[in-house]
């Protein structure tokens, strides 16, 4: 192989790699923009399809699970209830088939509730530790439907 051919190979490789990298980077940029669009669309769809209570500036117990008028349908026997609690306190959760108690700090908290078939009436009570021991509470209905329609 003479000098010119080696020079041609090296130059071709350098220019080719450079162009390849450019193509790769510009593809990634496009894909990132597309992913962002898809995420935005999914987020918008979620906002439309499910009613989730607003967390901002709440002084009440907030249920973060998807629910309509505090009605939840579950196809599993154990339901993971996700709550946001505005203050520290003693949390008591009572349902037809389960009862739980815990001392909780303000912020996000989740709890597994055992369900019976059909309607489960759930009461969430937070005894706050202020001077009057005021009570925050939430009533929920969780419907456990073990079959598929």
């Amino acid at each position, binding site marked *: 192989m003479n000098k*010119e*051919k080696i*020079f*041609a*190979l090296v*130059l*071709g*490789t350098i*220019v*080719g*790699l450079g*162009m*390849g*990298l450019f*193509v*790769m980077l510009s*593809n*990634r940029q496009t*894909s990132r923009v*597309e*992913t962002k669009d*898809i995420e935005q669309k*999914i987020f918008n*769809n979620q906002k439309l*399809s*499910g009613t989730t209570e607003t967390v901002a500036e709440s002084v009440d117990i907030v249920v973060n699970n*998807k629910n309509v008028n505090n*009605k939840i*349908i579950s*196809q599993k026997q154990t339901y993971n209830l996700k709550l946001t609690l505005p203050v520290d306190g*003693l949390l*008591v959760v*009572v349902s*037809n*088939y389960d*009862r739980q*108690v*815990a*001392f909780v700090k303000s912020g996000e908290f989740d709890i597994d509730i055992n369900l*019976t*078939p*059909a*309607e489960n*009436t*759930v*009461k969430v*009570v937070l*005894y706050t*530790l*202020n*001077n009057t*021991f*005021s*009570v925050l*509470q939430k009533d929920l*209905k969780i*419907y456990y*439907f073990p*079959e598929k*329609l």
Partner: protein
Amino acid sequence: MRVVSVILIILMVFIFAVSVLGQTDSAVTDDKKVEEIKERISSQLNASLDSAVDVETGFFVRQDEADNKFELNYNDSKIIINYDAELLKVYNVSGSKTEEIDFSDLNEKDYLVAFGNKLDNEFHALNLYRQNNERIHNGTVMEVRKDDSSFLTIDELGNQIVVSVLRSTDLQIISEDDNEFRFQKAVFSKIKENDRVVFRFYASDSANIDAVSAEEVIIVPQELLEQLHINN
């Protein structure tokens, strides 16, 4: 001739490098897109499966069975439930036990939970569950009446309810041991004025109540709350 072959080699290597790098990257991008689309379809499918099941509840009002319809009443609202006698499954729920029963076993004012679909504002039930209409309230004990094993409660809105404790009532008290909170079996004498209570009972209709027989009472002692207040 030499110049032409040098240019040809440069072009070939350039095209090779661009196509290899470009293809590898577009393959990765395509895989990512396929995964994203799969995830999107799966989440939308789950959402539509969830929304496919709808639920209606209320007290049973029998209608002409030839119409394959009946009524559920709750809080003065009525809903007509359509069903197919061949497809409808009816269950009785007692605690965690479920037993299949016949539609003819249902009685007027039974509390029913109907799972099905809503099509064109008409509800079509496929599964019916008969169970007790459970309600759970909470309040502060204002007065303990030892003579008839009952106590008077008041809630945050000022509603007063007399709660009767029967032999069958499951009485539980919350206690603390080493920062662990737990329920303990209790007796009626453990209930004191100013204690907080959560009580579960069956309501035979949707009307407001002022006296109930409790299925379960959970006592949150005032001293426990005071202790927590001091410690925190």
